[in-house]
């Protein structure tokens, strides 16, 4: 029986170590990878993170096995002042290295492109360049996204329910299992609207309508926070949103729109961005 060479030994050890490591990673690490499974985008992002983690596990295992093997097998066993044997290159090793890294990089490029083109996880909707529904499309579309505007100001987010009459509320409530089109803007400085567990983060810039999509799938509370240093109370610019059933959302719309109706008449017409007056103090 032919004795395995160094290369074959490294490969065999690597395969064994990889099988063990990937099993452990799959069991213990991937279930806790962010951002979780609270929404379609979050699930897609977590799938991407799982793939990248497993690929990283393979690469790390190869590096550790290779170095471990070299340190053990090719160590200098006796003290000597002499030079080691000259290194003249190894065509096969070079070929394997180039092919392996090329395949890995091309795989990741193809995987990333496929994920982006599928609209998965980026919050950009069904396509990478996803246009907002016009009002005509909203009427004709069978299942249009729910339009909600996020208005950032120092230091609180408020929310305008565009598809439900345009009332504004301090409460962020969304129905589960329905695509939501967020229009994110700011009235003063740069903020960033971030719901970690739903995998959505969108810059809130004054004078800009930043559109992001999400489809929450699990009923429950979500933490909202500002992810852009925005002044004295940036650290306190957080909120708790609620993902509820469609019927609970309908009840919320009814009660909240009534509650805020005294102030709704003062709100400007819905716009993707606002240039509020006064921008400066009158005095």
């Amino acid at each position, binding site marked *: 029986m032919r004795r395995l060479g160094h290369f074959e030994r490294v490969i065999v050890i690597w395969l064994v170590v990889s099988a063990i490591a990937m099993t452990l990673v799959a069991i213990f690490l991937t279930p806790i990878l962010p951002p979780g499974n609270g929404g379609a985008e979050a699930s897609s992002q977590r799938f991407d993170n799982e793939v990248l983690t497993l690929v990283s596990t393979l690469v790390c295992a190869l590096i550790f096995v290779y170095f471990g093997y070299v340190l053990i097998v090719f160590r200098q066993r006796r003290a000597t002042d002499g030079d080691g044997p000259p290194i003249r290159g190894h065509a096969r090793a070079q070929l394997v290295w180039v092919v392996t890294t090329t395949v890995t990089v091309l795989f990741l490029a193809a995987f990333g492109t496929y994920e982006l083109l599928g609209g998965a996880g980026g919050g950009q909707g069904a396509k990478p360049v996803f246009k907002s529904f016009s009002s005509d499309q909203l009427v004709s579309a069978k299942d249009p996204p729910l339009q909600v505007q996020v*208005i950032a*100001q*120092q*230091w*609180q987010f*408020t929310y305008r329910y565009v598809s439900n009459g345009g009332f*504004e509320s*301090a409460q962020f409530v969304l129905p589960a299992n329905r695509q939501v089109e967020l229009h994110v803007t700011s*009235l*003063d*400085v740069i903020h960033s609207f971030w719901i970690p567990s739903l995998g959505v983060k969108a810059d809130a810039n004054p004078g800009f309508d930043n559109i992001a999509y999400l489809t929450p799938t699990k009923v429950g509370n979500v933490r909202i926070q500002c992810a852009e240093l925005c*002044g*004295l*109370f940036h650290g*306190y610019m957080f909120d708790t949103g609620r993902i509820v059933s469609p019927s609970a959302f309908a009840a919320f719309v009814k009660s909240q729109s009534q*509650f*805020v109706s*005294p*102030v709704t008449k*003062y*709100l*400007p017409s819905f716009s993707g961005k606002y240039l*509020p*007056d*006064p*921008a*400066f*103090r*009158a*005095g």
Partner: protein
Amino acid sequence: MSLLQKLAAIAAALVVAGVLIGFYIVDILMAGPKALRPGTPGPNGSVNLTIQTVAAAGSTLTANPSWVSYFVRDPSNQWRHSTIWTLPAHTLVHVTVYQFDGDSGLRNPFLAKVRGTVGNSMTVNGKAMNVLNPDDASHTFAIPQLGLIVPLKGVADNAPNQCDFGPCALSTAHQTITFSFYTPKKGRYRWQCFVPCAAGFLAGFGGPMQTLGYMDGFLNVV
């Protein structure tokens, strides 16, 4: 200089730098207003809190006399310049605001709706209201973590006998706003003004809007 002397010099320099950095950090931590217990006993275990808002803080109690500011009245009936107030938990707080500043207008009209107070309402000069014309707002008293916001009506521009510098006497032109709210469980809750009322600062939100002790503060609920 020997190696030992060089090492000793480096060590001494590091110690001096560390002490200076320590002083700097302590100074930052100690800066800002001191917490006050401004509440006075009210009926049935409630607490009365009396505050005022002024267009210019004045030099009597503050380091920035031209800045817009809040003041709070302590149990000895003295106006104090602090926006960190200690209040008991799960207690009804009756708030009286004497508002001496002119109107600036809210940047977001939605914040003109009174929320989070008992009955989601307030009184302005004795008249019950649950919303204010956003253009009439001079300031707000808001605790976003509690969902509480009260817009404060401004003094008319042509009102006679207006106050120049705080703390202002009640004999000068002002609006009186009252409302009540329940303090939550123990914790630290920030409060703030939402009106861009910082005259002379970018977008009206610099200076006193970004400095504890003027238009922002904390409720230390204990």
